[in-house]
């Protein structure tokens, strides 16, 4: 069999359903044989970045690895942003790129680029395959590495002559990678210490990140929080790990987190951080992060996260679910009383509610999102882009289940939402998918509308159009001397006409009373639908911590 067949058969064996890709000179053998493998459904994207984000959205919505094909040189390099997005957010993905024939590697051949070199900082692992006998093992290993431990993207760069070579069929059995460590084991004594510290604390707080969702540890988190009477906040990517309406919920943390969350973090005496990187968006000014904490507890499956940003007193390098489960017996036995702390948090929740300006007669983004979420309830997947739209979408819904909010947290990739929403819809055809984006990010990958139309995907696009790069404009207004520089997006396409040109229906909405009817129309229409909401161009994200300041110094929305 050919190397190409070996690749395609291996994908079938790994249970791959969809491949998001784009053909070109160096991966033509794969495409020549693709039709002989009908179990693989190939989605032809319009730009390779779209393929990577679709695979990413597919993976986040399904829990299965997303698979991408691209050709050498520019094709592979167009994946870099998408790989980075998946890498930063620990999303399982396998990208298979064509490379020039092994005989001309290194000779600056047509469409040759050093893809391993260009992607090694944004992949969990990568392989250059120059011999056909390497293929079966490499593909099997790639899926194993992408999906286990802390998940991430793995790239396989396959020379074209390898795809065309012939060899006997080999089925790899098991994997044995000497340098690949899986931290499955929980240090039971550490877990007991963590539970005791949490239970004995006067003012404990738990923060939950993406790792909780990746390990499906939500039930253990809920049981631990209730057992230890400990309030729980989530990171942006941890949204859904803990029900927002729960009395112990602190909602979102970080420099655009809720006021009551930040108050709790800054006054906590024990802080347990689970499945998170504790990055600068969570800590704001690191030296002043959680200054009253006597005991930091950090649980993460990646040992390099321990002490990378905050040095924990108790560290558990383990899967979140296993670690939390190991704490549970010790927490239940101690049964702490925590009334004063919880009452204080309730007061902060009342003193620092989420709010927005409603009185200036212009359409507010929250008006749009509250209506949308009322329809989505907790049964739809919402995929947000990056910027103000992302934070509004994160804050203005009481997520009570995991897996319903998808966004690019670590990389902050503009243009993520549309292709990721398309990928999510392929993964979950049974669930409504809403794509929330600003007009700036939307046009970065808008060409993928063709994919939504071609497959008649029921993706509803909620464009929060403020004719500017809103988050950048807000930062310039507040933190960079009020100089509005290169943020004006007055000259943009007429999005209704743009949608029509792509072949999907669309509406423009400028008034509050038209919001509901426009969503009614979107929901009545099968297939993709776009609504261009002309929102208040001065609308801001609140709360927000000024750049370089501590979490204590968050600004809130002016009272309306």
């Amino acid at each position: 069999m050919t190397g190409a067949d070996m690749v395609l058969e291996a994908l079938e064996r790994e249970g791959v359903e969809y491949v998001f890709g784009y053909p070109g000179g160096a991966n033509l053998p794969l495409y020549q044989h693709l039709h002989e493998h009908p179990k693989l459904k190939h989605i032809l994207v319009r730009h390779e970045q779209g393929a990577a984000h679709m695979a990413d959205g597919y993976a986040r919505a399904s829990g299965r690895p997303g698979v991408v094909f691209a050709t050498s040189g520019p094709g592979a390099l167009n994946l870099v942003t998408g790989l980075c997005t998946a890498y930063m957010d620990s999303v399982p993905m396998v990208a298979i790129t064509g490379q020039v024939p092994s005989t001309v590697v290194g000779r600056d051949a047509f469409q040759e680029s050093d893809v391993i070199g260009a992607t090694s900082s944004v992949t969990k692992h990568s392989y250059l395959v120059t011999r056909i006998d390497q293929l079966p093992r490499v593909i099997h290993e790639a899926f194993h590495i992408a999906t286990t431990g802390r998940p991430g993207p793995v790239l396989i760069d396959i020379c074209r002559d390898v795809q065309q070579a012939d060899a006997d069929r080999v089925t790899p059995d098991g994997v044995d990678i000497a340098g690949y460590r899986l931290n499955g084991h929980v240090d039971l004594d550490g877990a007991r210490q963590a539970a005791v510290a949490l239970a004995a604390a006067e003012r404990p707080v738990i923060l939950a990140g993406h790792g909780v969702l990746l390990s499906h540890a939500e039930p253990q988190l809920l049981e631990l929080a209730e057992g230890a009477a400990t309030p729980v906040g989530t990171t942006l990517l941890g949204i859904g790990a803990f029900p927002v309406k729960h009395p112990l919920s602190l909602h979102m943390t970080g420099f655009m987190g809720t006021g009551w969350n930040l108050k709790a973090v800054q006054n906590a005496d024990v802080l347990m951080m689970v499945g998170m990187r504790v990055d600068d968006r969570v800590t704001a000014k690191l030296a002043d992060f959680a200054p009253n904490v006597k005991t930091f507890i950090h649980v993460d499956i990646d040992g390099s996260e321990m002490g990378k940003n905050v040095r924990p007193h108790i560290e558990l390098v383990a899967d979140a679910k296993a670690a939390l489960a190991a704490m549970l017996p010790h927490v239940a036995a101690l049964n702490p009383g925590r009334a004063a702390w919880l009452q204080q948090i309730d007061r902060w929740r009342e003193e620092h509610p989420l709010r927005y300006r409603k009185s200036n007669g212009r359409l507010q983004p929250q008006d749009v999102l509250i209506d949308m979420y009322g329809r989505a309830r907790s049964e739809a997947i919402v995929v947000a882009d990056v910027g103000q739209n992302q934070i509004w979408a994160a804050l203005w819904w009481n997520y009570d289940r995991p897996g319903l909010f998808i966004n690019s947290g670590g990389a902050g990739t503009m243009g993520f939402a549309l292709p990721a929403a398309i990928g999510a819809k392929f993964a979950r055809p049974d669930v409504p998918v809403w794509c929330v984006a600003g007009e700036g990010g939307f046009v970065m990958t808008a060409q993928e509308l063709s994919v939504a139309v071609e497959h008649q995907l029921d993706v509803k696009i909620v464009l929060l159009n403020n004719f500017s790069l809103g988050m950048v404009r807000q930062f310039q207004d507040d933190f960079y001397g009020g100089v509005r520089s290169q943020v004006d997006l007055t000259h943009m396409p007429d999005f209704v006409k743009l949608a029509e040109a792509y072949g999907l229906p669309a509406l423009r909405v400028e008034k509050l009373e038209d919001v509901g009817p426009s969503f009614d129309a979107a929901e009545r229409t099968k297939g993709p639908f776009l609504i261009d909401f002309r929102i208040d161009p001065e609308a801001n994200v609140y709360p927000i911590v000024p750049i370089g300041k501590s979490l204590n110094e968050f600004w809130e929305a002016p009272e309306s």
Partner: protein
Amino acid sequence: MTSPSGGSPLNAPPGGEDKIRVLSVEVEDGPNTLTKVSGAIRRRGFHVRGISVGPSRKPGRLRITLQVDHGHAEADQVRKQLERLVEVVDVEDVTADEIHSREMVMATVAAAELDGLLRHGAKVLATGPKGTTVEFTGERDEVGAFVDELHRHGIVDVARSGPVVMRRTA
């Protein structure tokens, strides 16, 4: 690690020695390995001060000895970031351990008078019309002192290795 003597061009500048970690790293022998290791060091803001690569006891594996400045990151981050690499089989941070550490320097000097170098223990490799080529192996500060001595003999050409280390067993 003690501070190297002098501040001559072939010696590390004084100061910053407490930021240096010494690691013994066992890796898979593959075309991408060295790029991956050096890439991980670079993008975390570390800086390689010395490196030597050679075969290890096990077939298909290499042993890399690294001296790395960890910059403003925590000291244990160097080991942890290297451990994340699939190509890296084992990392030992031997900075605080009792180790044998050897570096090597070869130089051609113009001077005919070699007593100063020979007193240090230099071995003469060859003598020719452009000068005499000598070899010296020792601990880091011994090599540093030898380099200072070389400067007094008029260096024509010189090459200095990174360290090779092994834990002391007795």
